[in-house]
């Protein structure tokens, strides 16, 4: 039998949403997800203690996490909220989909194009850096300069957009015509921002305001976002999808758009603690690829109370899951750096860099940085913390997991006890000069002080 085409795989995925077993959503959360994860944590002996490495370097451990995640993916599949059906893939089907994953992809265009490579743990291959405010809310008048300030950073290979708070002075309503109006405005302003920064060909992460398929369909069209940009579709926790996400995936296929699909399991939620989240990350990444496609597969597991992806336990979970995926697949995997702290605080550098280092040495292909202050506060993000992540990402290319662990541990020690204080810092308008789009002297000197500290303590010179 001939191998299915990508399009046949997509149609097969849609079929699963229509014909899978019917499941109550409550059972999905409590039995399918929670019980399965608990069983697999025991079966594969996934556990660690507080003084174990934050960046483990035991390949067998990483492979057990991968095996547990694969078993989870096959046993549970995905829940379709619209049809109330379980979408199931066999291990053969998943392996066939994984075998088709390209080992490198080029996004963007012209001199601004960048190639992103599959990486393995301890790999010295270049890691790509995707900088941006990652959906942090922003007013209409500041949208263009805000994005331009990111596009001006040479360390960013791609730029992600912010979330518009209004469109033409009106509220943006999900699923209404205003979503279509807003995405068109978003695209025009984002394209203007990169043009002003002199990087017209850089790939943009989009469509930021596309809550539903309306935004995606309206934003990926002639005159708006381009085929060299990268689009998003996601699972809802845990391992749930819906027609609007599947519609986005169909549109990506029809237009030939790049996409980054993502899944953020909840630490303390139905996935349980760190070991459960590590399994859920692997399972979710395999399934977003199978269900929604995705040039890149991303995760930013979320602490149920802190909303961050940088809690110490999540650093271990993400590192282990990435190692398992990087050792056993060619998936282009990316971590989502989402600290509790915001711009203008010293801690944001430690918090963002800890997860960056832990994932780069574990096989991440690209770093999605930084959704500052967990992304909920209007204009609380700046390019400088993302620059720090990008510089650190390149500095640790080729570093072993074993060598990275003490650095990550030292950084984690500097922020782990203040995460529940939610030090959101100061908004972009107070840490950047709006005329020059450069950091204020005070903010820049804080960054320099941390760079000096890194050089003194670890001999790592960042490109400042």
């Amino acid at each position, binding site marked *: 039998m001939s191998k299915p085409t990508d399009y046949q795989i997509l149609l097969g995925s849609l079929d699963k949403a229509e014909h899978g077993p019917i499941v109550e959503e409550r059972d999905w959360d409590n039995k399918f997800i929670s019980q399965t994860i608990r069983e697999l944590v025991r079966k594969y002996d996934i556990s660690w203690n507080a003084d174990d490495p934050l960046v483990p370097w035991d390949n067998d451990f990483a492979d057990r996490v991968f095996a547990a995640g694969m078993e989870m993916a096959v046993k549970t599949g995905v829940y379709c909220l619209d049809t109330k059906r379980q979408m199931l893939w066999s291990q053969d089907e998943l392996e066939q989909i994984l075998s088709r994953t390209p080992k490198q992809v080029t996004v963007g265009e012209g001199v601004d194009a960048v190639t992103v490579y599959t990486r393995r743990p301890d790999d010295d291959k270049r890691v790509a850096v995707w900088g941006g405010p990652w959906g942090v809310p922003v007013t209409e008048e500041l949208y263009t300069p805000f994005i331009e300030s990111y596009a001006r950073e040479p360390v960013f290979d791609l730029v992600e957009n912010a979330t518009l708070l209004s469109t033409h002075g009106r509220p943006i309503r999900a699923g209404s015509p205003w979503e279509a109006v807003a995405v068109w405005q978003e695209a025009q302003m984002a394209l203007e921002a990169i043009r002003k920064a002199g990087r017209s060909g850089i790939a943009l992460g989009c469509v930021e305001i596309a*809550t539903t398929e309306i935004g995606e369909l309206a934003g990926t069209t002639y005159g708006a976002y381009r085929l060299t940009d990268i689009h998003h579709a996601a699972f*809802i926790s845990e391992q749930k999808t819906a027609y609007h996400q599947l519609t986005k995936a169909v549109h990506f296929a029809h237009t030939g758009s790049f996409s980054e699909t993502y899944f953020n399991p909840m630490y303390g939620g139905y996935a349980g603690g760190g070991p459960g989240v590590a399994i859920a990350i692997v399972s979710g990444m395999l399934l977003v690829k199978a269900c929604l496609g995705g040039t890149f597969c991303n995760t930013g597991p979320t602490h149920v109370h802190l909303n961050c992806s940088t809690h110490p336990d999540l650093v271990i979970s993400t590192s282990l899951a990435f190692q398992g995926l990087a050792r056993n697949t060619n998936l282009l995997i990316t971590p989502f750096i989402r600290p509790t702290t915001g711009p203008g605080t010293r801690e944001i550098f430690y918090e963002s860099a800890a997860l960056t280092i832990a994932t780069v040495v574990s096989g991440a292909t690209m770093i999605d940085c930084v959704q500052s202050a967990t992304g909920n506060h209007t204009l609380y993000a700046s390019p400088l913390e993302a620059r720090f992540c990008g510089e650190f990402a390149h500095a640790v290319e080729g570093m072993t997991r074993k060598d990275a662990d003490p650095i990550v541990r030292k950084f984690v020690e500097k922020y782990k006890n203040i995460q529940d204080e939610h030090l959101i810092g100061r908004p972009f308008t107070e840490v950047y000069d709006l005329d020059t789009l450069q950091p204020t002297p005070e903010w820049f000197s804080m960054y320099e002080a941390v760079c000096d500290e890194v050089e003194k303590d670890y001999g790592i010179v960042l490109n400042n």
Partner: protein
Amino acid sequence: MADWETKQAEFTKIILAGDEEAAVSLARTALDEGATPVEFFENCISPSLQDIGKRFETLDIFLPEMVTAADTVEKVNSEVINPAVAEAKDGKSMSLGKVLLATVQGDLHDIGKNMVGLMLKVNGFELIDLGTNVPPADIVARAEQENVDIIGMSALLTTCLPYMKDVCDFLEGKGLREKYPVIIGGAATHPEIAEEMGANAQGGSAAEGVEKCKMLLGKL
């Protein structure tokens, strides 16, 4: 009933394990030994659930354990406590109030809302959960049908915030705004947003949501 402390510790252990049979049996025994249903609720169920809520706040337990405990207590209430209260007709309510919860139109995220719902339940509130993607008119209609004390709404996405304002506008338009305190929560919200949407309060976490609900009903 002299040994409430021991009984409560035992009850906590049982409901965390989800042992419905043992939980029902413990409640029946307590009532057989002379405790009133209200005494059992106040000395056993309520402190056990509050203890579990606190353990979840510090993540000594995770969401599934809290779901199991809340489900087990519902079984005890339906099989033992509620029938005994009806029989006793002492008129004393064990509920702090009835809260309607919904994730607003356009948003399918429900874990945050579910956490708030569980925390409300374990703190003694009755819960009407309308699920996700609920249109404003449906929220108002169900609030009236169920005669709730508070309307609670959740949104993860900023583009769903206008639907929260719609609910407040609908209440205003129907002359019901004073009848229902409105609380909002979810990643897209903060206190200033609550003011913009016309809500009475905002909860920054599940625990804070419970405290604000108590405050809105003058139970703090």
